[in-house]
């Protein structure tokens, strides 16, 4: 149960980094994402259900054979989600979408790709 919960939380954190979380500053260096209304976090309603599986390979470096599990979900989920976003719009000429991949960021990447495509055709 603890491992499952840690993985779920880690996945949510990694997905959040890919799609929502980002610290932004104005031109004078003031943090403009200083509240949770501006610095967005997903709620339980914003993340998908997870199907998890695991292997058991005890550590040989301590007597209990234990390993940390907390960030296992976090580390892989961010690139997985960003790659999925880029893959979804790659056929439209988008090569990269900066994190976090917000709707506006994806839209701008599409606009830029469309401008490039028109430039290439001309």
């Amino acid at each position, binding site marked *: 149960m603890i491992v499952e919960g840690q993985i779920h939380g880690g996945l949510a954190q990694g997905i959040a980094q890919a799609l929502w979380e980002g610290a932004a500053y104005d031109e004078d260096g003031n943090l*403009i994402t200083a509240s949770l209304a501006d610095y*967005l*976090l*997903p*709620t339980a*309603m914003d993340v998908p259900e997870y199907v998890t599986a695991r292997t058991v390979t005890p550590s040989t470096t301590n007597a209990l054979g234990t390993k940390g599990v907390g960030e296992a979900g976090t580390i892989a989920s961010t690139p997985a989600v960003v790659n999925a976003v880029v893959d979804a719009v790659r056929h439209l000429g988008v090569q990269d979408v900066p994190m976090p991949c*917000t709707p506006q960021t994806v*839209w701008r990447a599409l606009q830029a790709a469309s401008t490039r495509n028109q430039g290439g055709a001309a």
Partner: protein
Amino acid sequence: MIPNAFDYVRPASVDDAVAALTEAGDDAKIITGGQSLLPLLRVRLANPSVLVDCGRIDQMRGVSDEGDSLLIGAATTHHEVMHSPLVKEHAGLLAAATATVADPQIRHRGTFGGSLAHADPAGDLPTVALALDCVMVAAGPNGRREIPASQFFIDYFTPALEWDEVLVAVRVPKLGADAGWGFHYEKFHRTAQSWAMVGVAAAVRRSNGSIAEARIGLTNMGPTPLRAPATEAALAGAAATVDAVAQAAAQAAQGTSPTSELHAQADYREHLARVLTKRAVIAAGGIG
């Protein structure tokens, strides 16, 4: 986060509420559900000397049938509005949009009139009131007056209410399915339960296979809720096809003045208004 000190009165009638406001002077604030005002008090953006609690005035609660329109008490909660059989039958757009407001806890406390009087351009219900041509009923020391929604929203958080007036009820014209009306509220938000980045309220009347009439309201596309007159004109008499709707929706951002912020700059908001208007009209009209 603790508010500044304030006095608190809880009048039992509309007349008592107006008297309390008159006595308190112009830095009193009316509170009903407190879902918008309390956060402002806590960060001390609002510092009223007196809170006049109108949340328990029975005359200001409930939904009644007035023939051509419904009369909804300003202190009726969102929960009561969206579950009212009269609202569901005669004001489907209001029922649908109210169901998208925040979460169940807030909908049990927050009130219809409170969200209109708060006049937040990101609020869903001001847009619906504008799209449905609702009429606000306000009571003041000189009696009652009626204010059409088109004149009620003046600027950011600024309703056309005097400091000694109470919004007591809202007249909602009936637009029922039996007359051919269909509805949809399309809300775009970044996380579940957050404010609309842009929202579109659509009421569409179909007749003989075409679109007879459409009303479009826009959320968060300027300092007040807005209509989309160019789109409405293009839809009147248009064919009920996805192409015709797309063509009309391409004009939805005309005359708007959305603000820019980190997650939604003005040009992106204009894009959203066009896309969401198309979706809302297609859903409201059962097109495609």
